[in-house]
């Protein structure tokens, strides 16, 4: 029996959206609440702290990671736009670049964490370090999740393009929406943790 998932390409008449698109936006809404709760926790901890450390983090590494993540957002949207223009080669190039930039972000983060650990600056040492590791760790897990999804679309998931190019394009769009959200979270994390 042929069981096709409905509304993966055509839009639902009631919502005017594909199911995948509404699904990813609802997922992102839940993500806003997750990070929102942690930002709220950060504010409470900071307001309650008698003093808050400044200059604990390497601003230049944080700035480099901001540039890397913004660059990856541009390559991600270009990967989707290339599919819309039926340019498979450019899509692969931009998606590969996005994966490489994401990996560079994590490598940078590894060096940052390693420097903290070597100085004994662990989450149990101060409130600031606890919230820093919690927020950046959770964000890092999101980066890792994005890399796994993108590698899937560069590998076995790419086969869908031959069978149903529109559905594949939509999947890349949803991946992009997730990726831009991860970038958006970092845009706020960087000043809050590194600069203020």
């Amino acid at each position, binding site marked *: 029996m042929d069981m096709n998932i409905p509304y993966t390409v055509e839009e639902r008449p009631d*919502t*005017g*959206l594909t199911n995948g*698109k*509404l699904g990813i*936006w*609802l997922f992102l*809404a839940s993500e*806003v*609440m997750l990070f*929102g*709760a942690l*930002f*709220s926790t950060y*504010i*409470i901890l900071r*307001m*309650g702290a008698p003093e808050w450390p400044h200059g604990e983090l390497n*601003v230049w590494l944080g*700035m480099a990671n*901001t*540039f890397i993540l*913004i*660059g990856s*957002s*541009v390559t*991600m*949207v*270009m990967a989707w*736009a290339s599919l*819309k*223009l039926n340019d498979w080669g450019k899509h692969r190039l931009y998606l590969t670049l996005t994966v490489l930039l994401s990996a560079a972000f994590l490598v940078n983060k590894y060096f940052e964490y390693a420097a903290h650990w070597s100085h004994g600056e662990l989450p149990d040492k101060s409130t600031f370090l606890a919230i820093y590791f919690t927020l950046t760790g959770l964000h890092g897990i999101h980066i890792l999740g994005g890399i796994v999804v993108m590698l899937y679309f560069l590998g076995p998931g790419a086969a869908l393009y031959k069978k149903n190019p529109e559905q594949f394009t939509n999947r890349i769009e949803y991946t*992009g*929406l997730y990726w*831009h*959200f991860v*970038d*958006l979270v970092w*845009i*706020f994390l*960087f*000043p*809050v943790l590194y*600069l*203020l």
Partner: protein
Amino acid sequence: MHSDQESIRKSIKTYWMVGAALFVFTGITVAVNQIHLAVPLAITVALIIATMKGSMVASIFMHLSHEKKWIYGSLILTVIGFAILMLVPSLTMGDNIGTPIHVEAPAAEHSGH
């Protein structure tokens, strides 16, 4: 979302320009930080720039500038929920649980002994 190829080509220029603008704003954020402003002003400036950058990512890269009403509907609920979360810290300011209570000893009673 635009689906015809001509509008996609036009959008591509916008994507690169927004990317460049995000780079510039990041540079400005760090440059302002190097001036060492007073903390309240530094927080205000950094969050204004971050909000501008976030708006660009959401409206252009995530295509929120031209989305369907169901997406906007779910986002309005999210904004309300997020605003409540951000209000939680101010609620804790009015909460005195855990604050030491100072009771002055009745001096007159003890003065005769």
